[in-house]
């Protein structure tokens, strides 16, 4: 048994581990730089976030070692049980949860607080992998598709009840896994289209958007011109898609903003992406002629954009971030940790960080695809999807591309729950990858 364990250590995927350490190191340095004060004599006091994060990292490594000594079949065997425990924790959190920043998604156990919503991502990933890889499951049937969706969205629903919308939305990333395992293309296309169209309607001027849609349609028409000539159906589909897009962006969104939503709601939505409400929608938002401003998330994004934007090409240099060091960006240790990188290391630094993330995502997919067992493969995709969702939404919200929802940047953001859950997610995949030739059910 001992011999087998040593050899299993040798088979751990080094590249993934290296990328992991790089990201954790960048995270530690970012947290350090945010808290750094040149006049502070206690730079390394235990009360500092930097030191705490370092401690969490130690715990993560410790848990990682335990995971490597665990039998790989353990994860699939107990997947459903874990899932049940996760759901149970989520439910009791609704009642026993502590109020932290307006949500009660934190559970305190003997002085240590953690977010069950973070941890249950792992359990959901395991359970979904177990379900989808089960020989009894036929994902082409509607029933099994609904069960899969239910598995992914049940924790999501409970977390919404805890007023932690951002975390809840993460569970939608499991659709990416289900898509990989056979969900029809059309579902994916529609989902992505809705997301893109909604964001585009918010971010881009109505008239400009009209031209963009028109242009894209003409390009598409050019590429399928032969089909268009031959087939009446294709023509109808193209015109149909075009009309839907136009209706959605030019009629539906303005209608919702001006007639359905209240003024302050529109205000809130725009402030979440750190933008001013366009004039077309302002009639509802303005009362007495003066525009309301100074919304909390509005301030966050503005400060975040200032911090990142002022970084320039090469940044201001390590420990020279004037915005991040002086507490101008709220939540800069957690949700807005990317500001530290953007401000101190500029575009080049951001490019490198994004490069590391994309490499990690690709490596995880590579690991997933080389698994012999379906369970491991699907689990791998779960990990990739969760990382991707966090990465994409977190960065987008710091630069004003997506609404500010409390989502952490994997492995960089300060916080034990976040660091631990992402580490465990990754370590379980690495553990499964060690036994990639085995069939795990």
């Amino acid at each position, binding site marked *: 048994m001992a011999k087998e364990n040593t050899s299993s250590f040798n088979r751990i995927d080094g590249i993934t581990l290296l990328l992991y350490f790089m990201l954790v190191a960048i995270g530690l340095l970012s947290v350090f730089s945010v808290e750094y*004060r*040149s*006049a502070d004599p206690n730079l390394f006091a235990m009360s500092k976030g930097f030191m705490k994060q370092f401690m969490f990292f130690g715990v993560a490594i410790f848990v990682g070692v335990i995971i490597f000594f665990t039998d790989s079949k353990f994860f699939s065997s107990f997947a459903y049980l874990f899932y049940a425990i996760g759901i149970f924790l989520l439910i009791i959190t609704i009642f026993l949860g502590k109020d932290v920043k307006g949500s009660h998604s934190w559970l305190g156990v003997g002085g240590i607080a953690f977010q069950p919503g973070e941890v249950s991502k792992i359990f959901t990933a395991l359970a979904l992998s177990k379900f989808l890889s089960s020989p009894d499951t036929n994902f082409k049937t509607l029933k099994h598709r609904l069960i899969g969706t239910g598995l992914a969205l049940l924790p999501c629903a409970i977390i919404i009840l805890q007023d932690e919308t951002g975390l809840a939305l993460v569970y939608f990333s499991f659709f*990416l896994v289900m*898509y*990989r395992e056979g969900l029809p293309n059309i579902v*994916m296309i529609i989902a*992505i289209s809705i997301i893109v169209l909604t964001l585009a309607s918010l971010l881009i001027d109505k008239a400009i958007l009209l031209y963009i849609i028109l242009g894209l349609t003409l390009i598409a028409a050019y590429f399928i011109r032969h089909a268009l000539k031959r087939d009446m159906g294709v023509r109808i589909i193209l015109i149909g898609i075009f009309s839907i897009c136009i209706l959605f962006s030019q009629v539906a969104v303005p209608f919702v903003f001006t007639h359905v939503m209240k003024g302050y709601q529109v205000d809130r939505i725009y402030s979440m992406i750190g933008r001013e409400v366009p004039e077309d929608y302002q009639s509802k938002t303005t009362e007495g002629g003066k525009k309301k401003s100074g919304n909390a998330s509005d301030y966050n994004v503005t400060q975040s*954009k*200032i*911090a*990142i*934007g*002022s*970084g*320039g*090409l090469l940044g201001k240099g390590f420990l*020279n971030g*004037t*915005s991040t*060091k*002086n*507490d*101008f960006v709220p939540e800069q240790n957690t949700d807005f940790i990317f500001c530290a990188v*953007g*401000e101190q290391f*500029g*575009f080049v630094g*951001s*490019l490198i960080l*994004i490069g590391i*993330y*994309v490499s990690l*995502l*690709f490596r995880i*997919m*590579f690991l997933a*695809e*080389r698994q012999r067992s379906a369970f491991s493969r699907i689990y791998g*995709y779960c990990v*990739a999807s969760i990382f*991707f969702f966090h990465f*994409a939404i977190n*960065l*987008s919200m710091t*630069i*004003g*591309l997506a609404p500010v929802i409390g989502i952490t940047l994997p492995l960089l953001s300060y916080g034990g729950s976040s660091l631990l859950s992402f580490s465990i997610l990754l370590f379980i995949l690495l553990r499964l990858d060690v036994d990639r030739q085995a069939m795990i059910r």
Partner: protein
Amino acid sequence: MSVAANPRALVIKLMFIGTAVVILLRLLFLQLFEDKYKIMADDIAIYKKVVFPPRGTILDRKGKTMLYNRLAFDLTVTPNKINKNLDTTELCNALGIDKTQFNKLLQRVIIKNGYRRPGTFIEQLSDEQTARFKENMYLFDGFELLERSIREYPNSSAGLVLGYVGEVSPGMLKRDRYSSYTQGDYVGMSGLENGYEEVLRGTRGVYFYERDNHNRLTESYKKGSMDTQAIAGRSLELYLDAEIQEYVEKLMKNMVGSAVAIDPKTGGIICMVSAPSYDPNLLRGRDRSKNYAALNNDYKKPLFNRATQAAYPPGSTLKPMTALIALDVGVITPSFGYPCGGGYYACGKRIGCTHSGGGHAANLRLALAYSCNSYFVHIMRLIEDAKKFGNVKRGLEAWHDYSWNFGFGHPTGIDIPYEKGGILPDSSYYNKLYHGSWNSCTNLFVGMGQGEISLTPLQMANAMCIIANHGYYYTPHFVKSIGGNPKDTLLTPYLKKHKVTRISDSSFAIVALGMQDVVTHGTGKIAQLPNINICAKTGTVENKAAIDGVAVKMQNHSAFVAFAPRENPRIAVAVMVENAGYGATWAGPIASLIIEKYLTDSISTKRKYLETKLMNANLINPYLPKIEAAQRFRDSMRYEMRLVNKKLEEREKYVKDSLLIRHYFEKIYGKKLP
């Protein structure tokens, strides 16, 4: 094994890449194409603190301090930091105010600055207030002393030379020299404070700090690498003798006029008095603007530097120069004489001469000693009509060139601002005046220093330096060295020797002897000093003023120029006392006292009576208030006229424009503009 084997894996990969690209494009836009974020980040997080260094001090020739910085204290208060149990009575006692005043002052601070920011409670505490406050400072939480420096003039003299500092004005800010100043900065407004502003002010320190979201300063920005240290202003060491300056100001306190003394060997100014003088300590601190207004409205114009800005006809004091020119042109020799019988009649009109005794102008030395008018108007005509020039215009041009070289007709370039150049007529001046038809009879008065020529006392003193030095001078200046360095680049223009004429040494020597005769047995005997050969020339300047629209002859200006000792000149003096009388009566004694004090360091008891006489005199022209009022009225009318003209011009332009618009409207649209 290949990932690409599964098309859906490929789609997911493309999605990852697509998202990353969108984020990167957005970052590219944010970080590279938009400058505003950088500006905003600096704006919110960087605090620029400007530290003003102490201004340089000014010392006289003996190292005596003439201008320095005194520390003064402002009492500031931060209202919300005041202890609730503050012993108000104690504080009021220390400051010498009562409770209602205390409450009023506190209210004012609260209204102005709010509760949290410190505001000035009392400006510039007196020494006694400061001392008593300091004694019990620990009792008064929230009250703090704020240090600031104030210019202090220990001698209370030389106000116009030293100048004063004041807040920079919007008009000054538009000029290049003050481009680095901002509203509210203090700057030298006149005198040496202005002339050597760049030296005295030092280098402002700029320190950059970071501040946090609560506006607290956290640390220095970029470890202080962008900071510049404040460098204290350098000191100025002057040629000026504080003692003589103060002494002359006292002598002339009841006169209007000026006195300038220069060391001919260096061009260094020993004293420069414009009477009446004022106490420069009035123009500093909290009452500056009030005092300034009072001084500015005084009809005796104490803020007007008569030594450099007032131009007078030099009168007979110009005669040595006329003699030098005549000698050099070759129209006379030292033995040339003129048979003056008490007047000059050659041009049809009598020009009077104070002496009528035979032979008082038998040669140049005699003519100088007795200041014969006939002699000098005659030789002036000889210069103008000299054969070698061809005609009178060329002759006058030649005279003009000589005079220009003597430093007349243009500012000398002294190191305090706003110097005037006086008037030196040339042929075009007379062409304009007499429509081209004039001859040497027209302007012969200039030869005796009357008529169209006018000089500043500084120019007269400088001309004495030229005679004393036999033909060269250094630009008159105050500053000997800057921060102990006599070769500072700012001083190079004053180290240059100006060799101005090719007039021969013998000509200078004979004129100097003539001037010595003035003192030994001529018109200026009053200036005689034992064992010192003084060379001098008296001057009595006729002048008129318009009183109630009528030209009234005023009492003559009393003028006196001198240098001494003749063999090795160490001082050259010019004194002008307005409307006082004969040159030898008033200006002469002042000049000789200056010379005596400078050369012997004391006044002999035999001459003390002169001091008393001068100090007790009241020589202020009784018409002066009227003249001054008329001048002010003319100035204000001129100003009004300018304004009216400007308005008319604008109106005219407006009417023209609207007519033009109407015209083109009709042309284009074929109908009248409503």
